[in-house]
């Protein structure tokens, strides 16, 4: 009688189980839902070079580092989610703060509502599509970015640090070999070579130095190889053309040699962003609207997260505030000649509460209730608003940053080639 092959089946089962354990599950494309902050785990991750920015519409293009040749990858359009977190130099930022060429890390999803996406909507499996020599992964459908970070911000979030191993200098340029690892010494170690040149900035305490300064101090040799003894630093990473047929060798734009230097860079960026948010108002979304009579309503909103605590501290119970409806691009509505304030609804902050539960990324965890006698169409659950506490200045924003009730049209905002004048033949 033939025996049942129980041993073989057990081995096969264990083998399949082992394969299932070591092969990461393929991440399914994820579309965020209106009124819910998505989890970072469901995001598609990529990095690339910032090549174009349309800051007023909170969108841009990134040359994504796929599995092919980086130089053939055409810039891929992306949009920021209304609650996205942009981090530059370890502090909150707007797209306009980030120089073109900066290498950015993205966590992104499918467009929440493809009908109103401000960038082209791509097929769901587009991250698998091969784009010639550029390879795959260079134009994913997940082009709505949730978390967008430069190198020092990425390192600070994950507790990473760069250890400088060696420099090889020749005249006014060189190559640095460095490895990125956890500050705790655990986890993966990533080694990479970068170019540096005379425009690389070195930050030491309050000092701002160039390569020539370090050569004068004899910290670095004029020519040749020198060990850098695993010096801990944070790096700003850029892309520039490099010679020798090497296109994808990233470039060091900045080296922060100590914590004070990095802290100062973060502080400047944080102050820039605070002024920016105070002048453009705090973004958030509507959780609920309780309607009263004659246009009165109590609107409960959640403020978006990731900003400096001092901004949130300005929202106090009993204080006056202004609430304005906004697009998903965070553009205000404006009317007449008095700007965004003219279309905003005034009211009193009846309640300001901070959740005691775990706050999802994208949210501040702060909920406000504003009572107004002018509830407008923009205040609906899930819709994006901007809110200004009375203590913030009442400022005008420039023309490209608001939508005007009668001066805007789809053709004005997204012009066609018709704007190119046809020259009459004489």
């Amino acid at each position, binding site marked *: 009688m033939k025996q049942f092959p129980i041993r073989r089946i057990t081995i096969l089962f264990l083998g399949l189980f082992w394969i299932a354990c070591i092969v990461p599950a393929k991440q399914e494309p994820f579309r965020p839902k209106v009124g819910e902050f998505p989890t970072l785990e469901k995001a598609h991750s990529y990095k690339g070079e910032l090549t174009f920015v349309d800051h007023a519409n909170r969108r841009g293009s990134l040359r994504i580092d796929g599995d092919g040749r980086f*130089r053939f*990858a055409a*810039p891929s359009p992306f949009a920021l989610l209304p609650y996205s977190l942009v981090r530059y130099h370890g502090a909150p930022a707007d797209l306009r703060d980030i120089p073109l060429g900066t290498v950015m890390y993205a966590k992104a999803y499918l467009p929440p509502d493809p009908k109103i996406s401000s960038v*082209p909507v791509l097929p769901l499996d587009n991250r698998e599509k091969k784009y010639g020599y550029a390879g795959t992964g260079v134009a994913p459908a997940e082009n709505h970015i949730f978390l967008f970070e430069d190198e020092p911000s990425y390192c600070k979030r994950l507790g990473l640090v760069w250890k400088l191993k060696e420099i090889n200098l020749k005249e006014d340029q060189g190559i640095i070999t460095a490895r990125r690892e956890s500050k705790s010494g655990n986890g993966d170690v990533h080694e990479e070579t970068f170019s540096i*040149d005379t425009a690389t900035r070195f930050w030491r305490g309050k000092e701002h130095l160039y390569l020539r300064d370090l050569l004068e101090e004899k910290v670095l040799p004029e020519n040749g190889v020198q060990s850098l003894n695993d010096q801990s630093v944070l790096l700003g990473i850029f892309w520039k053309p490099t*010679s020798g047929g090497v296109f994808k060798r990233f470039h060091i734009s900045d080296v922060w040699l100590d914590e004070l230097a990095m802290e100062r860079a973060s502080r400047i960026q944080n102050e820039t962003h605070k002024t920016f948010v105070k002048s453009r108002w705090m973004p958030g979304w509507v959780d609920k609207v309780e309607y009263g009579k004659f246009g009165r309503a109590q609107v409960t909103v959640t403020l978006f997260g990731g900003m400096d605590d001092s901004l949130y501290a300005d929202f106090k119970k009993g204080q006056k505030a202004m609430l304005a409806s906004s697009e998903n691009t965070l553009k205000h509505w404006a009317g007449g000649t008095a700007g965004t304030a003219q279309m905003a609804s005034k009211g009193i902050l009846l309640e300001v509460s901070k959740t005691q539960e775990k706050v999802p990324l994208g949210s501040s965890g702060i909920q406000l209730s504003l009572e107004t006698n002018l509830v407008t169409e923009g205040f609906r659950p899930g819709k994006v608003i901007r809110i200004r506490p009375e203590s913030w200045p009442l400022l*005008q924003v420039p023309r490209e940053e608001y939508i005007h009730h009668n001066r805007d049209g789809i053709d004005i905002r997204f012009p066609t*080639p018709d704007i190119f004048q046809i020259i009459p033949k004489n």
Partner: protein
Amino acid sequence: VSDLISQKVWPESGKKEMKDQSALLGITWKPAPGDGLSGAFTSFHISDIWLDDQSIEHAAYFQTQKNNHFIRTRWMPAYVNEVKYGKFGQATATLTLFGGMDQSLYNDFKKDVGGQINGAENTLKHTASHYGPGHMASNGKIIQVTKQEGKVPLGSSGIQIDFKTDQIIEAIRPGRVVRFRPDSWPKSQIPREEYLFNNSPENRFPTPAIFRKN
């Protein structure tokens, strides 16, 4: 500002006489209080103050180094003054290099130095192939470098070079824009959006048709 306050150079709040201190200013625009009609909108903002010559030199050094690297990898722009045709595709093109750049860049244009010339758009975009602009460019040698005497018009470097090549191409015509690389500059690849290759107006200036109909 916090550093100057901690040094007691500036007060924490209130006014202080600045005694006509000489400085250079970086000016940006940020929203300013006002109703938008009374002129407060155009109250500009100081982004940077350079308090002495050394500090502005420091900033200028950084920007110069950036631009030097940029030009060396994207090549020196110029326009063609004259083309003297020889036989079998040979020609000598006389070019005027555009001005306003660091002298060290112009110093690299020397008589008898080899180089490459490439056709460019008025946007200064190269024509290129998959192997970069160097692949489409014409090789040759600088046979003469002349520096214009007298007042040089803004936009011009006042430097003319005569470049002899054995592969004269369509783009090298009087009045046309070219880019030039002396052999001492690196032969690097530039990113896809910075060169022309298999172009169509739709690719370069997309219409709203790129937004898929749902």
